[in-house]
């Protein structure tokens, strides 16, 4: 991972390597890059002011008679408390207005692709809407074409959540009854992590997701794949797993397109095996994770709203997991 380019030497300040899939210091989106410049500007000017105040205080405490006499009047109060802040704040404010105002350089979504994200306790319902109006249902992961500004529409199905991918942009709340719009523009391919930033009760700490930015052509191919129906299982275990899935009540909440599973309460599982993570970025995605989640979900992610399923034998659990895992 690379550091914030403009001020790389200052990376020292951030202790370790300044990277992280969820770090605002390592932007990979247009908005986050702009904010990163602003952040460093603010950090540097704040440090400068703090050092100045400390020096003046040291002067007042330990300075020579002459020094102290010079800063002991109301002149210092007016200069330091009135003139200085007005100057500094005016400059900062103008820059801030420039960043967010009507003439802001923030990209406008081009309308070719829209992503609707609904915050649910404690996962993300994701729907891609392309130019033709085709809706592609998915969950807990967002894929974006690199370079294209994509409009993201945010709302909530229950309580207030907040949508935040620090490497791409600032956060925006998801409020029931309202729809907020955000533009995401990934500047390079790669994985970023996002997390709910508004306390939403219970398993708030486990409400995360990954954003995968891909080159335009790969993205187009992926979206076609994602729009399609689920793969039909071929192996014996997988087929048995599908039978279990369809007969054990899973379909009351989950959809797997191309089968009779059309539940809408929980996440769409049509291509769940191809996702980067399970349970809203709580578990890495592999066969054993499916088994663990189904059997032990309440320990993995306390208070999550999927009822515990301890009715399966080990063998059945393995079959079910391999079915889900092959939904790619």
């Amino acid at each position, binding site marked *: 991972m690379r550091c914030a380019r403009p001020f790389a030497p200052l990376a020292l300040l951030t202790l370790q390597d300044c990277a992280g899939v969820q770090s605002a210091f390592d932007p990979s989106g247009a908005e986050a890059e702009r904010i990163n410049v602003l952040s460093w500007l603010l950090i540097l000017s704040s440090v400068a002011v703090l050092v100045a105040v400390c020096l003046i205080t040291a002067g*007042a405490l330990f300075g020579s008679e002459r020094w102290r006499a010079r800063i002991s009047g109301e002149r210092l109060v007016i200069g330091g*408390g009135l003139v200085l802040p007005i100057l500094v704040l005016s400059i900062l404010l103008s820059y801030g207005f420039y960043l967010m105002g009507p003439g802001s350089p923030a990209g406008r979504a081009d309308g070719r692709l829209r992503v609707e994200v609904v915050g649910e306790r404690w996962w993300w319902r994701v729907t891609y809407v392309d130019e033709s109006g085709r809706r592609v249902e998915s969950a807990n992961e967002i894929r974006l074409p690199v370079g294209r500004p994509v409009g993201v529409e945010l709302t909530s199905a229950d309580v207030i959540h907040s949508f935040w991918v620090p490497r791409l942009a600032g956060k925006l709340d998801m409020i029931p009854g309202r729809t907020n719009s955000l533009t995401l523009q990934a500047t390079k391919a790669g994985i970023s992590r996002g997390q709910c930033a508004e306390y939403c*009760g219970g398993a708030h*700490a486990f409400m995360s997701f990954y954003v995968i930015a891909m080159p335009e052509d790969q993205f187009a191919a992926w979206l076609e794949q994602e729009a399609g129906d689920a793969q039909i299982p071929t192996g014996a275990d997988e087929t048995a797993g599908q039978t279990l899935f369809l007969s054990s009540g899973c379909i009351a909440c989950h959809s797997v397109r191309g089968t009779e599973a059309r539940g809408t309460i929980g996440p769409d599982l049509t291509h769940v095996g191809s996702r980067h993570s399970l349970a809203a970025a709580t578990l890495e995605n592999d066969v054993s994770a499916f088994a663990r989640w189904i059997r032990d979900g309440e320990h993995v992610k306390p208070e999550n709203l999927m009822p515990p399923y301890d009715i399966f034998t080990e063998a059945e659990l393995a079959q079910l997991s391999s079915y889900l895992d092959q939904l790619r």
Partner: protein
Amino acid sequence: MELPNPDPRPEGEVRELERIWATPRGWRLVTAVNNTIIGLLYLGVAFLFFLMAGVLALIMRTQLAVGDNRLIGQDLYNQMFTVHGTTMMFLFAVPAMEALGVMLLPQMLAARDLPFPRLSAFAIWAYVVGGLVFFSTIFYDLAPKGGWFMYPPLTLTEYSPGDNADFWLLGIGFIEISAIAGAIEIVVGALRTRPPGMSLSKMPIFAWTMLIFASMIMFAFPAVILATMMLEMERAFGWPFFTAALGGDPLLWQHLFWFFGHPEVYIIFLPAAGLVSMIVPTMARTPLVGYRLIVVALIGIGFFSFGLWVHHMFTTGIPALSLAFFSAASMTVAIPSGIQVFAWIATIAAGREGLRMTTASLFVLGFLFIFTLGGLTGVMVAMVPFDYQVHDTYFVVAHFHYVLIGGFVFPLFATFYYWAPLFSRRPLSERLGRWVFWLMFIGFNLAFLPMHLTGLRGMPRRVWTYPGELGWDLLNAVSTAGSFVLGAGVLLFLIDLAANFRIGKGGVENPWGAGTLEWLPNDVYSTRSIPYVTSREPLWDRPSLPQEVQEGHHYLPNAPTGGRETIVTSPIHARPQYVIQMPGPGWPPFLAAIFTAACFLLLTVKLVTIATICGVIAVVFCLVWAWGLDPGPSKGVIQVAKGVRLPTYMSGPTSHSWWAMVVLMFVAGSLYIAYIFSYLFLWVVSPEVWAPAGSPSPPSSRWPLSAGALLLAGSGIVWLVSQKLEKVAASRVLVAAVLLLSLACLVASLALEVEGHLTTGLRPGDNAYGAMVYLGVVLFGQLVLALVVMGPFTIARHVAGKLDAVRRVTFDNYMLLYHYTVAQSLLGLGLIHGFPRLIG
């Protein structure tokens, strides 16, 4: 200057004062009302909450020390951070400041006590009982877990079943009320019980900050009181204020909560800044540089702080124009804060002999550093795009702990070390104090400085655990270590306290050589005589003052009425006006507080019948307590100084009672303005549910016109009685008849209003419009209820011969609240019946 009482005083006056002001002993101690006793209790309990909420913080820091940690469970953690935040803000910070106001303000003003001693006692006991019960919910899994900000819809019954959230709502609602009682006390105390000669421009900065603090409570707290009422009504009865599907809006809560919540920060910080403005000049041995600039800055902060609340909501998706406005407004607060910081630095520089490096000075310097840093990160988060990244992350956690611990806890510890000699026979240890300071300072910075980075590296707030691979482990481990160092500092302070703090008099008088009145020789009765003040630092400018005061050469050197009393002066120039006779120790305020607390807490667990009984008992004790007030003019005119004779009774606009009632009306007015805001806000959000299109039209205009006519008639009756009280009071029957008639007007008007809306078929649970209409009725009704209690009380006073044309304070209070009720309700009728017609 000629002394007010130049002649030698007769023997025995001091003994008389000691007898009158004696502190009740043994178990009767709970009946004490004197400000130094109950103030100490207040501060002690507030500090206990600081310790307990601090322990919660240490447990949470342990949980967060490393990633993927599962030491304490999710549910308990969620309860803990809610209780930690709520306790620190509502049970520690604001009460601790009010406690300091109660303890120090009368001393600084050389008043014998605050003007309403029993009200203070009531507020404090209610807080002690209510607060302890609220905090204890963490021990039996009943604590609220919606965060200290309790955002709906998360806190609605659908998502927070159980009583946990109700404990927050009722517990806090009731602590808010005790804060308001304290605020009334402080406003009237600062404006009316200053010593003769102490004009506003000579008032100590701390008194200025307390005055602004209390005024801000008057205007800020009603917003959150209304919000908590609405949330509880939605939880208990399903009135949909915050449910989007029925026309409510979760953002309404956020607006009301932050309209309170932001000033709250300054409510906490301002008095702390006032304390610093007292300590710095003493330690630098020079008057404060820029006194006038500071006063202007303080008032400026008070005003500005009400215009910034939206900066807590930058990420809710509000329009760019309001973002820009609130961003700019937020930054302007840097100016008055900067003025204060540089005024303190200039004062330090102005001291000829340099700043004395006492423990108090160290805490002040630590405060300067931490608060400046917190202020700078405050400017950073006021920049909207930056806030988009750091809002609700550990950066913000770091920021507000810098502002609150730096801006409040450090000055508080400076206060402990500086003012302890006033209340303790022994000062706190300067040697231990240094260790306390360095442990706290280093621990604090170690704990909170890294959090800025933790937040920028992506860690959100209020998560009970986090994945180990995101690069947050080391930073969190450092924070946890720092928090324990900070905790060790506080523990060492407790040891110092245990070793050295001994309540009582007899320590060194004025050990720091300070210039303000609290350092005059004093005892339970405060100072022997109340000094005539001619400057801002009277003890520096008149070295003989302590002796003069002690020998009784200033005002009121004795107790001429034979009871507790202090001088009331004019609000601006502090000219003596009258002597107020104050109540002494008594059971009613204590018992009223206990039963008020019981009523609220029993309501929380839905034991409505017992709660109602407790509520009634509480009201009865309040009435018993009020019965002993309004002493009347029987003590005549007394001499307080040579050639100065003052009345011992006052009614009308000069009396402290009138002032308190007016302050209460401001509080009620703020509550009603918050209601009007909410009504219009929900209409803007959901015009589709509003009458006449989306709900039944309001009843025909006959209903509100009759209701309004009844109100005006009632007001007219009360006005007439007031004008002719001399004649009316001659007849027992007449007073009772007209007061009951005025009450009948009110009740009939309320009944018409309720019945009118019921006939249209509108119900409060229908939608946000219905909820708003009936909330208006509730606000009308609660004032009517208050008057229904006060009316018969007034009649009873008259029947008992305790009310006449002169002794009329009880009637005046009834009259003032009556007129206020009529004014508010007429406005309400206009809004509720007029607005739908306007838009229809």
